[in-house]
């Protein structure tokens, strides 16, 4: 019984793979098919945010990363932190409305509604790879050498997905039944972003407050991305293992929340 409950969310990934694949493809196609710039929007938004944050935090507030004085370094560190954060925040934001958006499917067909938040999170991760390509290009333009530790991202992205999916399931299900969830989550995401060292380096945080960042898996994720891409560091085993463990727990817990609430969806939608 206990084993079943733990394995169930992973079985969803395996059993529903064809539906998930179809939905991810469909979402990417239809999301941009009606806009003039198409998939370009997936690039423009992070670039605009990059310019905005660089201006505010680097030029105005003079925040610095590491030892370098160069503004391009700030932009690189910022962008490297933004890429995983935006994937997370966009995934969660889309997961919030994933179920109501497909109300006819949930109400009228026998449909595995658990794949709805899931596919939005996968789309967000897929679009993140575009951000990574730009990051890589910027890296080379800035005269830095991309190193092989970057390949460790392939491993990091797995717990990243599990963590995002768990949170997405929980808020996605709750938002169907309690509409206030959307407000809470959109505010929460903003709060969470500033609680994560994205626009500032962790080194600027006073020592006595730094323990709080240990409680924030996103802080670990952002730092791991920076280590792999900018500092040529493969993630250390112990913290990475801890992140994996936390992600698996969140993944399973999120699924349980979703599964518990999903039978009420048809009553509400």
């Amino acid at each position, binding site marked *: 019984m206990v084993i079943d409950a733990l394995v169930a969310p992973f079985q969803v990934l395996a059993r529903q793979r*064809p539906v998930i694949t*179809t939905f991810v493809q469909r979402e990417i196609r239809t999301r941009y098919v009606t806009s003039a710039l198409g998939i370009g929007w997936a690039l423009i938004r992070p670039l605009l945010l990059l310019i905005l944050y660089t201006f505010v935090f680097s030029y105005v507030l003079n925040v610095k990363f590491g030892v370098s004085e160069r503004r391009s370094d700030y932009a690189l560190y910022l962008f490297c932190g933004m890429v995983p954060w935006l994937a997370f925040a966009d995934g969660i934001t889309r997961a919030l409305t994933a179920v109501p958006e497909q109300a006819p*499917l949930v109400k*009228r*067909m026998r*449909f595995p509604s658990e794949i709805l938040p899931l596919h939005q999170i996968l789309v967000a991760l897929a679009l993140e790879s575009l951000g990574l390509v730009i990051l890589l290009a910027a890296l080379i333009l800035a005269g830095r050498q991309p190193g092989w530790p970057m390949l460790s991202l392939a491993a990091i992205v797995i717990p990243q997905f599990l963590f995002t999916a768990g949170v997405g399931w929980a808020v996605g299900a709750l938002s169907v039944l309690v509409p206030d969830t959307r407000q809470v989550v959109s505010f929460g995401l903003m709060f969470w972003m500033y609680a994560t060292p994205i626009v500032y380096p962790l080194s600027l945080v006073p020592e006595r407050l730094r323990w709080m960042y240990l409680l924030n898996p996103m802080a670990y994720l952002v730092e791991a991305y920076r280590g792999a891409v900018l500092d040529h560091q493969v993630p250390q085993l112990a913290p990475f293992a801890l992140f994996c463990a936390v992600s698996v727990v969140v993944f399973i817990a999120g699924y349980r929340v979703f599964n518990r609430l999903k039978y009420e969806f048809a009553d509400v939608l």
Partner: protein
Amino acid sequence: MSEPIIELDTVSKSYKIYRNPRHRAVELLVPFAPVLHTDFWAVQDVSLRVDRGETLGVVGANGSGKSTLLQIIAGIVRPTRGRAAVRGRVSSLLELGAGFHPELTGRENVEMFGTIIGLAAQEMRRRLPEIERFAGIGEFIDQPVKVYSSGMFVRLAFAAAIHVDPDVILVDEALAVGDAVFQHQCLLRIRQMQANGTTIICVSHDMGLIKAISSSVVLLNAGRIIAEGDPAEMASLYFARASAEIAKAEAPQGPVPTIASDSEAVRFQADTNLDARVRVFRHGTGAAKIRSIELLDTCGRATTVVEFNDEATLRVHVEYLADVPSSIVGFGFRDRSGTELVGTNTFEEGVTLPPRKAGSTLVVDFRLRLPLIPGTYSVSSAIAADRYTRAYFDWIDNALVVTVSPPPSGKAIHGQVWLPVEISVHPS
């Protein structure tokens, strides 16, 4: 015998009704919160076995739980209590094209529908030509479905839904969509599927359809199965209950007027509720007014349900408010679409009504048979001076709703009105 394809064991489904939508959140999030909802039992203790290849009709008034029952069988709604087992792939015609995305082409949508219902992509692609042929939408198959007409959309969705080799197919009034040709095509296809051993669950108010395709029927009322069995019997029962409901709804508040016994002379009676009831359906000069219309069975009792082609009397009570040298009283029966099927008047039947003074009354009895296809009909009645003047003294539509129940013989009625016919056969 193999195990039934659908097996419901004392299945019940309750919906939580909240007086305030916020209460749902409170119940969900606040630990040890008091119960803030009331349960509405849409389906109660329903047990059902459907064998492979059977066609089950589900009938009942609106709100009797038919849709919820179908949703349970379709696996959309999980029963609150009891156990529901469906052994096979279910395709539902309940909400055609529910999963279709407007921006994707018909072809892409059909492929996606296949994936959702659990068919491999290449399997669905193999069926595409047949689906295309059935839908008959030509080049549009490669256009985004948002440019489709509603008819095209439904045809494609229907075609997709029936070409996925379902073990069970759920049919709703969905069959009533599309043009006549397509409807016949659908019914034909359903018959084919029946012949191929597909199990069909059909929900409809159309007793003709139910009787035509079902092998057995369950009658639902307030979420419970109140009768099950032979389709013709269940259809009669359904009609009987429906007209009882209508009678109850139309019954005057006060004591019911006493029924004239055979020996008693026919006496004028005014239905005090009539004026209020038919106000919007009425026009005329007012020189004479229809005061009551009733349908009497062979024993002279007022009724609203008669058996197909059974003898009955339509009685019209008229009060004259002006001196009238001559008048004609007539009636007509309209079906649900408003088409007048049959009707006549005293003039056409060669009966001359006597001149009447203001304040006098007249009761006209039309003894008739109603060889109409079972269903509900609305009765119109009118009184005019003669057949040449356009101005009616009084004209009332929807004066009475009458239900014609199916013939007990189970005879099928072709067309809207039965044609009395004599058949002789002459072998050579």
